């Protein structure tokens, strides 16, 4: 069995300029990523009849919404038969999975999916303060966290990490090995933001943000956009790249969408999503050649490692002890591009981009040396999770 009966494939990807405070708007970056992805697929904008993005026009801090679906389709004058955006979905790739269903059901042929952020520039310009200054009171899910000084995901996710460490003995040094691996890989990625080598001393001595998270356990605001073209399989022949199959996808959420009420604090929505994904495919964790796993915080990456079953629940510490498990030349390379920790917070889409580039063997210096056919992509943290198994035979 294959996701949406094997009728949806990925045909191209593209990224804009990426950096810190590069002084361009989120819309400008989104347009650049879209142009590159469409060209990379061997298409033109006349072929694009669907468009999807995350999160859509939500109220959020400066730069979080780089561009909406309407921004991009209007800028290029796209004639679309289907368009969507959304934030109440399965991680940042939720609407990309919807795009696959849309092409499979005939509602569109080639869908431009994108995510754009310009948080570094917008926040430097003081827009965050200007925007959040209006929200004097905390509402929605923030209502029960902000009044207690729990202002940041570093606090909310830090609590999960602390409980896991308490239960299973995971250490800061083990998390550090994952962070250092990401930095090493980023050194081979010209698009990565942080490329200087990092030592364990650098990691352990960095200032503490919210224990157990130090500075290098947290990604940083970036400017950049990523676009992915999802096409109907029958329309994907003869294009620039061999079509990548979406072998399976997981979008399950079996508990309330909450940061503190999940029954087991040592798991996350990632576990629901990955479990639901494996129910739909004959592949198993042992078949996966490499993985790109959301690491907005180092701990989130460990949750995806467990969720996909690359190690048993509670055993991610010992898994991390042995770099052979996850280094670029190892058994299951993880985040060859450097993840969000070192390559920048492109908010989910960077992991899809990297999985495709690796499968097409277009990753340059950071190309995984062994043959790769099957990639696991896990996106999101806390109650947000979506995942895919991408296959290029």
């Amino acid at each position, binding site marked *: 069995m294959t996701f949406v009966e094997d009728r949806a494939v990925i045909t191209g990807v593209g990224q804009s300029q990426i950096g810190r405070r590069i002084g361009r708007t989120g819309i400008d970056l989104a347009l650049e990523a879209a142009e590159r992805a469409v060209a990379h697929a061997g298409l033109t904008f006349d072929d694009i009849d669907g468009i999807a993005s995350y999160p859509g026009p939500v109220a959020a801090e400066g730069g979080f919404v780089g561009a909406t679906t309407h921004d991009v389709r209007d800028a290029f004058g796209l004639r679309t038969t289907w368009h969507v955006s959304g934030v109440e979905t399965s991680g940042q790739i939720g609407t990309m999975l919807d795009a696959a269903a849309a092409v499979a059901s005939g509602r569109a042929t080639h869908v431009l999916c994108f995510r754009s952020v310009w948080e570094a520039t917008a926040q430097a310009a003081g827009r965050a303060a200007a925007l959040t200054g209006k*929200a004097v009171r905390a*509402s929605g*899910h923030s209502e029960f966290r*902000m009044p207690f000084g729990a202002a940041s995901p570093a*606090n909310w996710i830090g609590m999960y990490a*602390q409980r896991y460490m*308490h239960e299973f003995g995971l250490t800061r040094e083990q998390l550090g090995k994952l962070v250092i691996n990401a930095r090493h890989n980023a050194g081979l990625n010209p698009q990565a933001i942080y490329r200087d080598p990092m030592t364990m001393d650098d990691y352990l001595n960095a*200032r503490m943000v919210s224990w157990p998270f130090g500075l290098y356990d947290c990604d940083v605001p970036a400017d950049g956009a990523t676009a992915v073209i999802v096409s109907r399989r029958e329309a994907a022949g003869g294009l620039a790249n061999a079509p990548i199959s979406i072998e399976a996808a997981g979008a399950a959420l079996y508990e309330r969408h909450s940061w503190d009420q999940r029954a087991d604090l040592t798991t996350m929505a990632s576990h629901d999503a990955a479990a639901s994904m494996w129910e739909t495919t004959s592949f198993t964790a042992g078949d996966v050649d490499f993985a790109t796993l959301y690491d907005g915080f180092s701990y989130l990456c460990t949750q995806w490692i467990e969720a996909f079953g690359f190690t048993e629940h509670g055993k991610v510490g010992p898994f991390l002890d042995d770099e052979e498990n996850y280094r670029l030349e190892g058994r299951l390379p993880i985040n060859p591009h450097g993840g969000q920790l070192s390559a920048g917070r492109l908010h989910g889409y960077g992991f899809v981009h990297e999985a495709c580039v690796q499968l097409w063997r277009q990753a340059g210096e950071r190309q995984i040396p062994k043959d790769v056919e099957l990639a696991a992509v896990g996106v999101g943290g806390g109650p947000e999770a979506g995942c895919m198994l991408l296959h290029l035979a």
Partner: protein
Amino acid sequence: MADPEGRMLPEVTAESRAFWTGGFEQELRIYRCQACRSWIHPPVGACWRCRSRDVGPEVASGRAKVAAYSINHHPWFPAFPPPYVVAAVELDEDPSVRLTTCLVDCDVDQVEVGMAVEVVFDEQDDVALPLFRPVMA
């Protein structure tokens, strides 16, 4: 990001009013289902376990245990000078019900999972924030 006092107070709703104001009478008011008797947080007009709509605030003991914590070192709000402890505490009445809160009267190095804590209210404007402190032996 914060009000002039350097903090962000909650926007009180019809469902959350009991939670945010019970402290003025020294009461921790948590929603409870009248059908299956489970406790519910955050407060909302249905029980997620049995789907009964017969729910409303009841007074909880204010006793809880630390389920997880993070020692915050970043100055997010002027009213919360670091370091301080952000914690998820589980109610003694039902450990599956947690409140995210801030621990007070507490050495940040002494916090541990399972530590017994009790509610203490911090009155700010029109709300009384339920903070927690270690139970003195």
